[in-house]
């Protein structure tokens, strides 16, 4: 087995709910457990998929890995660095992409790439070299000097992808990668993730789309109500049944509610 790059060790995370949120969810508890003692690992050069319904705890898990949130208990490690104790070392090694991360529309892709490379301390020469390669690969060089505000949704998505990996991270964390994208853009994204895997990157994605997991992932964790229900390689999980059949069998058995 390859090197363990991502290690999630028994993490939990709860959130306080405001009166408004409690009313909306029709519950009386003042806190909600989003992640409940989850553990799993992802290895070098593989794509790990977190599968689960909305509100299962996928995004919270990825946010903890991206050092945006701190776990209440447990720890997670990226290439041996703790997200709790060494967040700066973790941030140097990850590229995080989610629909929540937006780009400043005033700048051009060229300026944004330069800015984020500088924020990661990438030397100018290396930045230029990487920018040229990535811009060419995605066809961004044609609109590199156009303000983000003037780009189409597809172009913006391409720019977001490229900027997330401007510093050549070892790990890519991608929350709902194809959410809200049309088929063409979804293909651009999946091709990009496969290309990153080919380059030896470790990728972790969250999704509720079975076909995406089947197309991309080497290993899968099914998560629900903040708990990891099952976690194994895709080939093992789908030995006797399809992923969808497995999910709904677990669902009907009460393990996935």
């Amino acid at each position, binding site marked *: 087995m390859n090197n363990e790059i991502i290690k999630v060790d028994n993490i939990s995370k709860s*959130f306080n709910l405001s009166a408004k949120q409690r009313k909306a969810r029709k519950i009386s508890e003042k806190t909600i457990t989003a992640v409940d003692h989850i553990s799993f690992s992802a290895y070098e050069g593989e794509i790990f998929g977190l599968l689960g319904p909305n509100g299962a705890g996928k995004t919270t898990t990825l*946010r903890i890995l*991206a*050092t*945006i*949130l*701190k776990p209440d208990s447990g720890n997670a490690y990226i290439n041996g660095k703790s997200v709790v104790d060494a967040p*700066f*070392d973790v*941030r*140097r090694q*990850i590229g*995080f992409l*989610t629909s*929540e*991360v*937006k*780009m*400043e*529309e*005033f*700048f051009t892709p060229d*300026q944004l790439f330069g*800015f*984020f490379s*500088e*924020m*990661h*301390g990438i030397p100018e020469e290396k930045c230029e070299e990487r920018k040229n390669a990535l811009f060419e690969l995605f066809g961004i060089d044609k609109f590199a000097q156009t303000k983000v505000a003037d780009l189409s949704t597809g172009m913006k998505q391409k720019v977001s992808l490229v*900027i997330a990996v401007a510093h050549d991270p070892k790990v890519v964390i991608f929350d709902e990668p194809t959410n809200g994208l049309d088929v063409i853009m979804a293909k651009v994204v999946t091709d990009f993730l496969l290309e990153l895997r080919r380059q030896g990157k470790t990728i972790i994605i969250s999704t509720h789309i079975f076909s995406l997991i089947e197309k991309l992932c080497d290993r899968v964790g099914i998560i629900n109500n903040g708990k990891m229900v099952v976690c194994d390689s895709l080939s093992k999980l789908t030995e006797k049944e399809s992923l969808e059949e497995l999910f709904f069998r677990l669902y009907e058995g009460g393990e996935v509610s």
Partner: protein
Amino acid sequence: MTNGIWVVFKKEMSHFFGDKRLFFTSVIMPGLLIYVLYTIMGSYMSSMIKEETESFKTAAVNMPQTVELALLEYNFEIEHIDRNDIEKAKQGISDGDYAIVAVFPDDFETALSNYTPDESNGSVPNVEIYYKSVNSNSSIAYMDLVSVLDAMEDQLNNVFDVNNNENSDITYDLATKQDATGNTIGMLLPMLLMTLMYSSCASLAPESIAGEKERGTICALLITPVPRSHIIMGKLASLSLMALMGGVSSFLGIILSMPSLMSSMNMAGASDLISADVYRPSDYIWLMVLIITTVLLMVTLISILSTLAHSVKEAGTLVMPLMMAVMLSSFASMGMSSGEVPTAAYLIPLYGTSASFSGIFTFSMNPLCVLLNVCSNVVLSGIGVFVLTKLFNNEKVMFNG
């Protein structure tokens, strides 16, 4: 990664200078607006004063020559009319032919010459003046004639004079150019400066922090390996510089429109002793240091409130009390000399600054007190950066976690 501050600073400044609309509304427009507004105000005041210096056409019945001579100074044009024409002349006021109609009794001069101060309250001659209060020309003419007649009445009772030494070189008003400038500028400029600085900061800081939160662009910044304190310092430094540019623009607007305002004030009889050249270079240096540290403090305070807000609109609401504090501090220390403010009060943010400005402008500055305020601004800004770092590290504040 220590250059994180510089990278964020560069990015913010490149946005500021690259976005023509932002640059125009933050730097060019404040100065331009003030210049245009004050110039129009000056012209309006001048035209009002000019109106006052127009001649007052007066229809007079039995006006004594002594009164007529006294009125020459006030630009009165006297037209003697017959008592039978009074009603026609009164109509003339409404028609704009006359400013006023003054009717003196037939024996007015005789009554005056026979008057003795110890005369008991008997019947006194009555002068009737018809005017129209809603017409400024008529109203001013009425007041001028009444003041001339009052002066005549006082002369009849003259027991002593005050400062009646017209032929000597004695100057009774001992105010120097410095005093006159300090008095006028010290009343106006501290408040104006505080307001302009605050406006500049408040127009930029919420957009840079609450705006980034609202648009979701701050997340990308926070997952870089740059310490959040560096991101904050980069933002604060750039915002302070932008706010200073906005403040300088507003200040230039005031200075450039000053000739128009001053000329109208001089026409109105204000002291011509007022001049900015009475301030020493050291005063300007103190001013600059105070302005820079105050802008830094204001930007920090507004940034803290903007960080707590979810949107630019909410940030605008949250900073309202701060605006009130700026206004109150400016009012409280208006025209105060340094001696009137306790030394410890210079440690109070905003109030101490406003008092320091007053001290500088009224030439009563105590360098120790101003230094105390500068230090207070710097220390409080430092505490503000610490608070901001804590807020930026708070997942609930930054990501609604």
